[in-house]
């Protein structure tokens, strides 16, 4: 606080000087007696529209339905809106979208302008996470094998495996309900409140191991998150104050997942058990204050305190009755985390074309969960000693000073310098210090061309890299974890926007980023990205519009490892190439017909090379090719009805060496789900009838 104390009188004097220098414009109000607004249309009454849609989907892969919800064959759905306006400035809007196909959104907005408002939403997000899964297990939180199951030492020796397999669907449906109220108690005082509930149910692939044998389970998910928020703000002349309180409560209805061991175990382990995610609760109180000074200067301060707790009772350290295990030190973690955040920001535009910004941000996570000694039980198979848990603390600080200057009306220069400090507890590096310098120049060349060039340089250094106490298996001392390692990053960006004609825009951009980790012998050594993008729009009149975009991205990295726990003895390089191309077209034909089309193409090619000796078997390329064409024809006349026909063709082809050829028994020590890389060829024909009331 040395400087703060020293400069406090100056700060006070400055604020006083600024206040005294303010000049307010006193605008003369016009005489509005004749402003009757007789040409202004009244917005009252009810209007509505209903859209009935039907589609026929023919696909040879489930992956098409990810995030969509359609099923193979005939699907029906309903969309629509209802709009009601009342004489007293009341309003009500109801919007439905795509109900009936596994997705769907609903929104109801109701209120009286300036008096109250309500916003209610509901949406479903179906997400498929694995395809062609088969499992011998049945059940939910208790994953059981058939009664006749004969354990084998390897999957190849499990005689009943093939016969026991049955398909299982992997993925979740997220159902979100939101309700928000807004209550302007006066022109200055506002109160708002909201509630959000997320229900997520489904199954996911979950690895479960006993010693070196693995069962890949289709584990159930049943999660609920409720979030409440209550806020109030006061808007004064030249200042604003607000307070906000929010609570999040998460509950997991699974608790634990138990599975029967399909392998013959040398440890007498007939079952294993995993813990599901623990319930948690978090609450935070935030206060914001803003004060406007003359010279278009704003001082903003935000301060928040929060606390989280986790009290989920422990399950026993093992389900294996043959193991003798020391008692747990507690019945639950009694986990507590305190969060403190504060942000100070001063922004100013003292002259036209000049902007200044100073900010300081601090975020502290204080994990007050007790440290205890827990019995070390390895995969329900054998018992070790005692091991202490490691509750991590973090503190992040970021300070930035930025200036933006407009030069000669055609040029804009932005400069910024920032420092980021990350403090950590119980980790290899207790503090990293990151300096960033950025500069960007935007220039108007003539009336049709805009150029942008931007450069960033990041230099990160850290305190000594240490072996942390309390971790049983020490890491290789030559390893540098990439997010804590010393880093040099340079990034340059260029963009050109050209207004080719009055109705045509072209944008070209290039983005290059290079990371090097100078002190790393084992771990990530370097990484780079090269990103080229182009976008194009053409709107020659009201009847035709065309947009197009293209991107070409290359991501490369190299890292070293040590199989022998000494110096680096292998080197891996990763190279990912992504090319994306897309276009949309809308054309108003003669009469009431409109033709619309879109085309998207995405090509991914990934290569991993690991060099660990004279002749290292190579990996095949990773591949993901997506092609999509959508064409539709819409008819809208002056009547109430409109209709639209369309066809969507989409094909996805992927090669993934982690999944391809990995069947239920490919790995001797793993009963796999036999997931396949997503591949499909889908055609969907659809029709919609829209009727307005």
């Amino acid at each position, binding site marked *: 606080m*040395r*400087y703060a104390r020293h400069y406090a009188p100056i700060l006070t004097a*400055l*604020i006083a000087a600024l206040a005294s*220098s*303010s000049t307010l414009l006193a605008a003369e109000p016009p005489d509005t007696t*004749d402003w*009757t607004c007789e040409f*202004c249309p009244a917005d009252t009454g009810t209007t509505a529209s209903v859209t009935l849609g039907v589609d026929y989907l023919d696909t040879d892969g489930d992956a098409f339905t990810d995030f969509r919800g359609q099923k193979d064959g005939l699907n029906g759905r309903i969309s629509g809106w209802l709009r009601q306006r009342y004489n007293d400035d009341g309003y009500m809007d109801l919007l439905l979208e795509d109900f009936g196909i596994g997705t769907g959104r609903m929104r109801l907005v109701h209120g009286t*302008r*300036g008096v109250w408002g309500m916003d209610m939403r509901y949406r479903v997000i179906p997400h498929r996470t694995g395809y062609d899964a088969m499992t011998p297990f049945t059940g939910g939180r208790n994953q059981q094998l058939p009664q006749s199951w004969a354990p084998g030492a390897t999957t190849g020796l499990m005689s009943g495996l093939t016969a026991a397999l049955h398909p299982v669907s992997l993925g979740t449906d997220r159902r979100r309900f939101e309700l928000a109220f807004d209550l302007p108690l006066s022109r200055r005082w506002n109160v708002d409140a909201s509630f959000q509930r*997320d229900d997520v149910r489904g199954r996911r*692939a979950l690895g479960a191991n006993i010693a070196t044998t*693995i069962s890949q389970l289709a584990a159930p998910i049943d999660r609920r998150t409720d*979030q409440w928020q209550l*806020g109030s703000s006061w808007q004064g002349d030249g200042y*604003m104050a*607000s307070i906000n309180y929010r609570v999040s409560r998460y509950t997991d209805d699974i608790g634990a997942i138990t599975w029967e061991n399909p392998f013959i175990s040398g440890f007498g382990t007939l079952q294993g*058990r995993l813990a599901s*995610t623990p319930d948690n609760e*978090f609450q935070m109180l935030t206060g*914001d204050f803003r004060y406007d000074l*003359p*010279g278009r*200067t*704003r001082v903003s301060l935000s301060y928040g305190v929060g606390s*989280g707790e*986790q009290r989920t009772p422990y399950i026993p350290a093992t389900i294996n009755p043959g193991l003798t295990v020391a008692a747990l030190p507690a019945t639950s973690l009694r*986990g507590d985390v305190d969060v403190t955040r504060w942000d100070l920001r*001063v*922004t100013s*535009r003292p002259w036209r074309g000049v902007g*200044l910004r100073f900010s*300081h941000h601090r975020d502290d996570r204080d994990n007050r969960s007790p440290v205890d000694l*827990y019995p070390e*039980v390895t*995969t329900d198979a054998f018992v070790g000693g005692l091991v202490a848990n*490691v509750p991590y603390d973090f503190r992040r600080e970021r300070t930035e000073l930025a200036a933006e200057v407009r030069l000669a009306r055609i040029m804009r220069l932005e400069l910024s310098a920032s*420092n980021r400090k990350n403090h950590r507890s*119980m980790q290899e590096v207790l503090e990293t210090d990151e300096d960033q310098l950025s500069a960007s120049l935007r220039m108007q060349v003539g009336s049709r061309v805009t150029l942008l060039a931007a450069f960033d340089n990041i230099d990160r250094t850290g305190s000594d890299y240490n072996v942390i106490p309390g971790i049983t*298996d020490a*890491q*290789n001392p030559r*390893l540098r*974890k990439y*997010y804590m390692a010393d880093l040099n990053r340079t990034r340059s960006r260029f963009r050109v926007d050209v207004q080719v004609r009055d109705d045509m825009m072209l944008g070209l951009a290039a983005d290059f980023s290079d990371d090097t980790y100078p002190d790393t012998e084992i771990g990530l050594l370097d990484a780079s990205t090269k990103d080229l993008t182009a*976008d194009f729009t053409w709107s020659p009149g009201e009847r035709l519009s065309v947009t197009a975009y293209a991107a070409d991205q290359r991501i490369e990295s190299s890292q070293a490892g*040590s*199989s022998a*726990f000494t110096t680096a*003895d292998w080197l891996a390089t990763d190279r990912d190439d992504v090319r994306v191309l*897309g276009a949309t077209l809308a054309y108003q034909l003669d009469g009431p017909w409109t033709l619309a089309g879109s085309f998207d193409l995405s090509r991914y090619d990934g290569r991993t090379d690991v060099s660990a000796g004279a002749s*290292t078997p190579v990996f*095949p390329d990773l591949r*993901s090719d997506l092609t999509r064409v959508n064409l539709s024809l819409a008819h809208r006349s002056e009547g109430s009805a409109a209709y639209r026909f369309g066809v969507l063709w989409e094909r996805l082809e*992927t090669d993934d060496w982690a999944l391809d050829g*990995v069947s239920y028994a*490919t*790995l001797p*020590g793993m009963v796999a789900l036999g997931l396949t890389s997503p591949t499909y060829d889908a055609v969907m024909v659809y029709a919609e009838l829209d009727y307005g009331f």
Partner: protein
Amino acid sequence: MTVLRNERTDRSWLCLMLLLLLTSVGGSVAGAEDAADAGPEFTRRGADSCLACHDETSEYPVLDIFRTPHGSRTDERAPMAGLQCETCHGPGGDHAARLRSGEERPLIPMFNDEAIHEDADGHNGVCLDCHDDQHRSDWAGSDHGFAELACVDCHQIHAAQDPMVGGFGEVEVCMTCHADVRADFMQRSSHPVREGLMACTDCHAPHGTADGSGLVAGAGTDTCYSCHAEKRGPMLWEHAPVSEDCGLCHDPHGSVNPAMLVQRPPLLCQSCHSSTGHPSLAFTGAGLPTGSPSPYLLGSSCLNCHAQVHGSNHPAGEALNR
């Protein structure tokens, strides 16, 4: 158990003082500029003067504004309840005046195409006169605000349905400038933005945030926790980068790797883990099904065993496999 000592960043205060000093000089200049700025007269009939020309057949039709909150004449907060069109567009007397033959019509003072980008900040000030509430309080310091974007670069004030309001059309507007992000969402693994089930504002606050991150609940993890609260913990056995920043392992806009990972396992895991009992072995093509299939490489790779990579609350979950 705070083990971190509080420190004071003295440089921060020096920068703050410098900034305030600069603004004190600027404040006087800005005030003098404003005082010297004299505008035209107001119209005689308010909106009726404007609507005489700007009907549905006009090059700039505006009647749809009466289907929006701005068009209310009874809500005292709405521009149409005050100086009507001239609340935002400024005095339009010159613009609406009769012209002599061959005379060019003067532009409306505010929100004409030329003026907006000459002084985006000044125009935004018109909007912020009413909308400078707690949700837009950080606009001036936000990346969008600092780059002098105009509100109308994204918002359509006269449209019956502004695509940026309600979350049903905003993605296309955002992608107009963020073309690289559009490409990210075309990748194999991404949030369902391309499918229309999420919008940019589910995570981003385009009007700025107090911490400058532009994320709805702040940088690090809290924005992610608003949908993925199961990862919040605290867990008995934490995975340090999970508690610190989801972005250390995931790219939320999309990735060529499963689960939006920034790199493919096992290499991603091996960039941080190489321990005595479990060294970072070189997994090569020899571990594919055509060779000696390796559980360290195939399926979920490291996660075949360490499935609880986001943390475990099992008393024996130290290795994140319970």
